[in-house]
């Protein structure tokens, strides 16, 4: 994963609450290998009537093409732990989602794939929704979103901010704690031998 500090791109409005992971990618697509690309699965059933695209759906409109910032209402990405929901957004070209709140597991998955879940107060999200489509500049260093004639702040866990900026890989980070993990494991086995089930 490569890190980033600023992102400039077109924002598109998805003025819905509770856009859950089952909307982001219906379960039936999740057996596909990632190499196939998950972008076409994004919001698959909301975007279509049967197989035909619904022209009025925000992501189907011409001005949404090439958008990389998604603005939505509260509890975006609630529900399942499927990282495929993030793959679908990333493979469709999104780098930032702006919403008043996010599902916890979704947020962690997003950060692990370089996708920023930017928390912005409801009133400001409503203003952004009204201004979309619009060009926005998102700055991870300053935690700001500029565009549509104003600059607003966003909230992000500082651990996640560092991870997005540095493009850290957790497995590499954890390798430096190998000795501590081994010591813990030995102690754990002494205290709770049942953690290691009999063969």
């Amino acid at each position, binding site marked *: 994963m490569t890190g980033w500090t600023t992102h400039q791109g077109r924002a598109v409005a998805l003025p*819905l*609450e*509770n856009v*859950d992971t*089952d*909307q982001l990618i*219906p*379960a*039936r697509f*999740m*057996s596909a290998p*990632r190499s196939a690309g998950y972008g076409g699965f994004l919001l698959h*059933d*909301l975007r279509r009537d049967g197989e035909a695209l619904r022209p009025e759906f925000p992501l189907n409109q011409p001005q949404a093409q090439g958008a990389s910032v998604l603005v939505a*209402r*509260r*509890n975006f990405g*609630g*529900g*399942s*732990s*499927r*990282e*495929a929901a*993030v793959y679908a957004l990333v493979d469709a070209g999104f780098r930032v989602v702006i919403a008043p*709140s996010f*599902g*916890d*597991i979704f947020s*962690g*998955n997003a950060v*692990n*794939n370089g996708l920023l879940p930017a928390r912005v107060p409801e009133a400001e999200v409503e203003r952004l929704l009204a201004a979309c489509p619009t060009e926005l500049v998102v700055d991870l260093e300053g935690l700001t979103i500029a565009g549509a004639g104003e600059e607003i702040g966003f909230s992000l*866990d*500082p*651990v996640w901010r*560092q991870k997005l900026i540095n493009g850290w890989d*957790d*497995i590499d*980070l*954890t*390798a430096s*704690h190998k000795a*501590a*993990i081994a010591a*813990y*494991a030995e102690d*754990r086995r002494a205290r*709770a*031998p*049942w*953690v*290691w*089930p*009999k*063969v």
Partner: protein
Amino acid sequence: MGSGDCAHDGRGGVKTLFDRLWDDHVIVTRDDGAALLWVDRHYVHEGSHHGFRAISARGSAVAQPALTVGVADHYVPTRERQAIADPDIARMVATLGDNAAAHGIRLFGLDNPAQGIVHVVGPEQGLTLPGMLVVCGDSHTSTHGALGAYGFGIGATEVAHVLATQTIWQKKPARMRITFTGKAGPGVGAKDMALAWIARLGTDGARGHAVEYAGDAVRALGVAGRLTLCNLSIEGGARCGMVAPDQVTFDWLRGRPFAPADFDAACEGWAQLATGSDAVFDREVTIDMAEVAPIVTWGTSPEDALPISATLPDPAREADPARAARIAQALDYMGLMPGRPLESVMVDQVFIGSCTNARIEDLRAAAAVLAGRQARVPGMVSPGSSLVKAQAEAEGLDRIFIDAGLDWVGSGCSMCVGMNGDLVAPGKRCASSTNRNFRGRQGPGARTHLMSPAMVAAAAVMGHLADVRPLLEGRL
């Protein structure tokens, strides 16, 4: 137990149960607050293939194969299980088997008599025990907290990390206690308790929090009810849910295949896993059981839940335009008229199953309603595990379901998530004992109403959403 514990008797200290579990698993804490936690139990399923592929790409091995357990559940067929017809599904099930074999991981595959849904099988086998940190690439891993464990769902990148290191990075969530006071009325159970708090607080109401369930009504629940309650924690946005272990927990675990050899000694330690009387939570919520009736969902989010005696919401009566719009959208998707009584809503089919409500106690509760009665609509009963299925058959519950006109099928995630092809057809309405009424959850265009297994049985008997209580008269 963890060091630095100032409790004398396990109840007089300042730590919450969650604090104890957290402290007990911290390997290192970084300056920025992120902690590296030890994982005692990692469950994997067919959907974990992304994680296995990631470690293979790095050339990493599974750090602790003995602590990793595979269960085939998400994609497994519930009928004709010997030869899987769909090649994609066959490949998903085979890939889990291949990964388990390649890495030396214990597998509860389709051919195992104890196969079932991971959140049913783990506790049932005694592979989840009090004091453990449990993860799985599935959001309903919160279920395992019912035994006094810290269980939470993780994504594929984290699955790869746990496979490679047996650890996970976490920021400590805030602490929240939900206390249920009083006594559950007849026909009211753990599902209703869960939907009651989610309806009150919203699907993001407990976001960022570790929830401990407490109070007399929680203590009165058996382990099955506690598993249901903790299972649904994620539907209220909680990171995890838990119940402090007690004698009910220990009695339930004794004799399980993977329970500790020296069980009594282990129980002595586990009995210390409790919240100190002086402990402070970041948030406290109290729910009086006198206010909890049998509940059904009407919309497309678990927070859209109302007592069965209520009427459907009317967007015209909502002051907040955003909320009015959301209600209108949900009613439109669900094909419902505002203001009509919930009991007037006709159903097309029923489903009893899932990690939420398919344990033997759930099947008994549904059978108590269905015994000697006919279902007016078709439906399916998928036990939580193959052992639950065998137990139900030994008790004759399968005959009750079959005689009522319902299909009795094999165990798996089945129609809760529809990955195995068990789907609700577009536009059809299903009364379901599952956990998510999201649009399309049970299949494209499917309309799901969540409720307890007993309430699903009532809907089957009446052909519409119905209050189970009159049907239980003389039967409890």
